[in-house]
């Protein structure tokens, strides 16, 4: 059979998927044991996470080597791109669940506890003394007194950092497309540094919340939504920053050409997605 541009490509078999499945299995067993307070839970969790990291090195390494050998065709490239887009869509829906919880609490459950509409008798009978609108830790004062996080200090600065990082990664992309590898790497490093600074400031903000504002994960619905939303977002920024570092190294090694750099673009999309989620957070968690 002669190879033409219309040939299909099917990758050969691989042990990495089964390694991935086992790694995930061990990770969640470790996490569950840890949650249950078993002594070895944390150890099992870290073994699992180590295996996940090993698997990622191995699997992505295989794909990178195959790509550099030039065995992937345009159709494979399109599959990767579409796959990444749908993955990001699924991530967006994950955040949607938590935003949904935030909106439900702010628009419905807290006003109902305050006696709005059909919540009238709930309020009168169960929580007659409750008068605290958002931000609140509920009529049971769960988690004790706290002060909410204001938007115009660190969070505003963090917004600035992330928005700038969206610009710098685009500059890097332009440089790559113009064939200027050095400048591309430089802008990638700047982007990763902006991401890392964001994380540093957020860690500082969390310490500030816990030590000075008495705002914790257990501070009623405000603390729950605040920390779960910003926490999952921070986790995604962490993953994104690691991805940026990998891409910077790969760009420096010359893995990408001006017209063939799916991995770069996939990371850039992901980074923009994380950026957009932050804008939603900044508006609905901090400002409003």
């Amino acid at each position, binding site marked *: *059979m002669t*190879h033409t541009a*219309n040939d*299909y*490509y*099917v*990758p*050969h*078999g*691989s*042990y*990495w*998927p*089964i390694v*991935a*499945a086992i790694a*995930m*299995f061990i990770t*969640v*067993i470790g996490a569950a044991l840890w*949650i249950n307070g078993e002594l070895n839970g944390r150890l099992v969790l870290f073994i699992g996470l180590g295996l996940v990291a090993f698997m990622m090195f191995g699997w992505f390494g295989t794909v990178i080597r195959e790509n550099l*050998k030039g*065995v992937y065709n345009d*159709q494979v490239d*399109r*599959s*990767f791109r*579409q*796959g990444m887009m*749908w*993955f990001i*869509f*699924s*991530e967006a*829906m*994950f*955040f*949607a*669940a938590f935003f*949904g*919880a935030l909106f*439900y*609490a702010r628009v*419905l*459950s*807290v006003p109902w506890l305050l006696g709005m*509409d059909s919540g009238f008798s709930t309020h009168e009978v169960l929580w007659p003394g409750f008068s605290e609108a958002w931000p*609140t*830790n*509920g*009529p*049971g004062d*769960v*988690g004790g007194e706290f002060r909410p996080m204001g938007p115009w200090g660190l969070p505003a600065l963090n917004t600035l950092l992330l928005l700038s990082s969206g610009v710098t990664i685009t500059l890097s992309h332009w440089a790559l497309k113009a064939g200027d590898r050095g400048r591309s790497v430089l802008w990638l490093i700047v982007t990763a540094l902006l991401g890392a600074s964001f994380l540093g400031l957020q860690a500082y903000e969390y310490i500030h919340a816990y030590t000075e504002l008495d705002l914790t*994960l257990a501070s009623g*619905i405000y603390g*729950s*939504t605040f*920390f*779960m939303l910003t926490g999952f977002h921070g986790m995604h920024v962490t993953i994104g920053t690691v991805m940026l570092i990998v891409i910077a190294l790969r760009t420096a090694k010359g893995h990408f050409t001006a017209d063939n750099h799916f991995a770069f673009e996939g990371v850039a999309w992901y980074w923009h997605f994380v950026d957009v989620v932050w804008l939603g957070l900044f508006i609905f968690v901090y400002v409003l």
Partner: protein
Amino acid sequence: MSMATATHDADHDHGPAKGLKRWITTTNHKDIGTLYLVFALTMFFIGGAMAMVIRAELFQPGMQLVDPQFFNSMITVHALVMIFGAVMPAFTGLANWLIPMMIGAPDMALPRMNNLSFWILPFAFTLLLSTFFMEGGGPAGGWTLYPPLSLQMGEGFPFMIFAIHLAGISSIMGSINVIVTILNMRAPGMTLMKMPLFVWTWLITAYLLIATMPVLAGAVTMLLTDKFAGTSFFNAAGGGDPVMYQHIFWFFGHPEVYILILPAFGIISAIVPTFARKPLFGYSSMVYATTSIAFLSFIVWAHHMFTVGMPVVGELFFMYATMMIAVPTGVKVFNWVSTMWKGAMSFETPMLFAIGFIMMFTIGGFSGLMLAIAPADFQYHDTYFVVAHFHYVLVTGAIYSIMAATYYWLPKWTGKMYDERLGKIHFWVSTLSVNVLFFPQHFLGLAGMPRRIPDYSVQFADWNMVSSIGGFVFGASQLLFLWVVIKTVRGGKKATDRVWEGANGLEWTLSSPPPYHSFSEAPVIK
């Protein structure tokens, strides 16, 4: 046209690896499809065994065999296993086997991820079933895991939550693969509106899965942090609301029930034209109806919670939106019947199951319409009427379509014919017993018997006994199905390439069994 192989790295692959390695490392859509189907069948019997425990306990009033806690975990895990372990993997297995063959592709778009999506599942369900052996036992708060009840589970709780996370990751990856395969791997000339309806319904199903499985992941994550990290999402004292969980859950849960039925519509739309020897009536209206059902599925979730306490505007909105689903569903049933109208019909086993599907799924659809009426639902809610309703759409709907698909495509997959006589016996015994099993549950529900209860008032005794007898016969008749499949695989008569004289579609142009890589070169689409 050469049918050798698709390009494999730089060299040529010469077929599957040997032994166990083949199944562990495979990137082949047929191997992975087979794994999914075998897994689904295994889980079908595990979930079925739990159903037998339930029906045995309900055979007579009073406590018979198991303690109430174990009974509750039986109904909970029966549902989780059947939904996430049997029906969904079976449909994914069918998607793997059929979609590349139907659109003229060599394989799925992302074959290694395909392998991972399957291999997560055995681990996820090991995790779920292992909770039975932990302190506090398996999950017993119902498959919907409503807090605060579900939070009272013992040590198994985080294991169950993570099992759901893993199964969700598997579904999302499987769905990404299906969508990308359909959008990117079609043979030249296979335009969207030329695709078989099974491909269309799976395209939309996969979209629903990617949109809703992450929402379920979010909901169960909130359960986990509410139990262990002190959050107050579902705690009114902290400003949250247990009802909020129900909203988030059913935002996933309602599209999920269409995930469980849309591929079935695709299967029936493939089988009915073959045995009526006429093209499908109203192809494009089928596509639009499927799309409408998918859209509506996102705006009807609260009809599962009419009695929970919602503003009356909400009750009305969700009631009318739900009733609208009857319109596109009616279009589908009308089209199947019109396809059969004046057709040269023959009644081989796949067609019997397809017609059984149309009849009994419609019964389930009608009882669904009854439940959609909010004031009436206040009476039916949480009774056996609901149990009867969703078993008509899931057992005689989803499961029947999977049986139909198995009989229809098994000769293509294995190259051998199944035993037609045994197939027909399987159909008739199943169909008679399944109605004895579930139809009386309508009466029980209307008379007021609550669901998820191990004991009941003596007035319900007669119909429960009838239902249990039907259940035992139905359960036993599935062993016949297992036997038919094993017998076919081990050596039936040789099947022809087209298998059915009325069959149309690319998969029938391949040999039976098809080559390891379906289409190494793109076929020509008329």
